[in-house]
């Protein structure tokens, strides 16, 4: 009996530490397959401006800039929408409406990205082409639009938590001093929730930069450096889409294969930094509720 308990508790401990093990393992395997790219290509080639794997040109700059462009576009669209929706759900919507809106956001979170990508291709991109009068509807902007909606559930739920965490006394104090409901929201609640809102934005960025299928299907996949002021309305190609589209066709162990893994390392590093910073704030806060008994 005691022995069995000992074994079970040991297993639970192992499971507990497995998360660290897996992060390290993922990093190691990305390095193992990706690092050879750095001596198989010159730095000038790897960070160059031209991505033509068939001619051994592996310039990742257009892909990195493509990811940045699409992600920035998505954040610019999603941030006001997400914040406003979070405030609306928490401060303005009556109870019954809240009970409809919250599941609706969950549904959005549940729609597979390939379904949104498909819809983006067949339904949204023709609209983009017509409205903006551009030669093709498969543009960075279309990608940003899809990504914005895909990161909305993250932004809304984190911002919602942040607003919820503002002490009621702050709010009551503002109202008692004669501030209107809106003044209270704008001058007291949102500033107090600022760090949570920043986390919401960061996690939204992390979500957007790593999204693959929808982006691959709607951005037109042209690896070009965004140069014009309106680059957002031309086709672009992201790091994620490049990996997804090309990994299936490369010979294992080739330079192209290693470079795709190296792009994976870049993605891993970027999302790691974003999430590490965001989580440092999350982990610190919050009192203990149930859980381990002391001693």
């Amino acid at each position, binding site marked *: 009996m005691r022995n069995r308990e000992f074994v079970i508790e040991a297993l639970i401990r192992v499971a507990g530490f497995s998360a660290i093990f897996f992060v390290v393992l993922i990093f190691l395997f990305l390095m193992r397959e990706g690092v050879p790219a750095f001596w198989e290509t010159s730095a000038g080639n790897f960070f160059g401006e031209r991505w033509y794997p068939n001619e051994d040109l592996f310039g990742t700059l257009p892909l990195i800039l493509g990811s940045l462009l699409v992600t920035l576009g998505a954040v610019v669209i999603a941030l006001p929408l997400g914040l406003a929706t979070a405030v609306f759900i928490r401060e303005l919507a009556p109870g019954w409406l809240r009970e409809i809106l919250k599941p609706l956001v969950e549904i959005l979170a549940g729609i*597979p990205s390939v379904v949104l990508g498909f819809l983006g291709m067949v339904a949204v991109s023709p609209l983009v082409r017509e409205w903006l009068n551009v030669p093709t509807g498969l543009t960075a902007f279309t990608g940003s639009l899809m990504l914005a909606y895909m990161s909305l559930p993250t932004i809304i739920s984190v911002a919602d938590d942040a607003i919820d965490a503002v002490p009621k006394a702050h709010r009551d104090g503002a109202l008692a001093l004669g501030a209107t409901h809106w003044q209270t929201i704008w001058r007291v609640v949102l500033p107090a929730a600022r760090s949570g809102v920043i986390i919401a934005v960061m996690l939204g960025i992390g979500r957007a930069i790593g999204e693959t299928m929808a982006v691959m299907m709607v951005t037109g996949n042209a690896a070009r450096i965004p140069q014009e002021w309106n680059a957002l309305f031309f086709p672009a190609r992201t790091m994620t889409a490049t990996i997804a589209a090309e990994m299936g066709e490369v010979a294992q162990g080739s330079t192209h294969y290693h470079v795709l893994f190296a792009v994976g390392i870049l993605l891993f590093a970027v999302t790691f930094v974003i999430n590490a910073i965001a989580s440092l704030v999350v982990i610190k806060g919050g009192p203990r509720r149930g859980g381990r008994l002391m001693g």
Partner: protein
Amino acid sequence: MSRQTSQRIAFALLTFLAIVVMVPIVLVVAYIIVQGIGAVNWEFLTSFPRNGMKEGGILPAVIGTVLLTFGTAIASIPLAVGAAIYLSEYARDTWLTRSIRLAIINLAGIPSVVYGLFGLGLFVLFLGLGTSIVAGSLTLGLMTMPVVISTAEEALLSVPQRFRVVSRSLGASRWQTIRQVVLPNALPGMLTGVILGLERAAGETAPILFTVAAFYLPQLPKSPLDQTMALPYHLYVIATQVPGMPLEIQYGTALVLLVLVLSLNVVATVIRSRFRRRRQW
């Protein structure tokens, strides 16, 4: 401008933006249902694709996705639940525990296509599993872990502390307390988390691209080491790789995938709300 006017303008703007968020969600779901429902019938669900996938059904893709979802459950649940129990019931607040939490948050943030690369590197090539259901399930399982851990931990933490105190004071050991008192009370919440995790796995494409998904297979997989077709990848293939694909079949496939995934969501919601109503603390 008076304070009341600015409040009215601000609230109107907030309402407008919330509508801009919500209406497209309803439209997307409604549009796929309307466009896809015509293609979906019994034959569509139970027959193989024919004529270069331009006719026939999506049976192998549906079966493949169901198999992968079960595989994901097997791969992720034991480890994730164990980790959640550790974090909630055993871990002290040390730097080690904080690094575990950091690791979980980072696992949750790793792009799905990077999981695909990792699965290719470790399971498919290094461990020699090949592109197979096992390799795909392990990849998806790993990706699902952080979601399950955080929701399961949340469920465990919501069991009131006095339950543990009473059980321990009656002489039960820590594991007996967990097994007999904490777990039964946390079960519905944990189940919700597991299902939400599986929902995400069932709809994912990028992690299975290089680890399991087949473009087209004329028969169903016979062993866990076989490749399989899967709904999300199938939708990607017929939407982008097959010229002259009838639009109706594409919408039909999207609809089946959407229904499959969202029904998991509904199951999770029902479990959660029934549990909330019944719970007595």
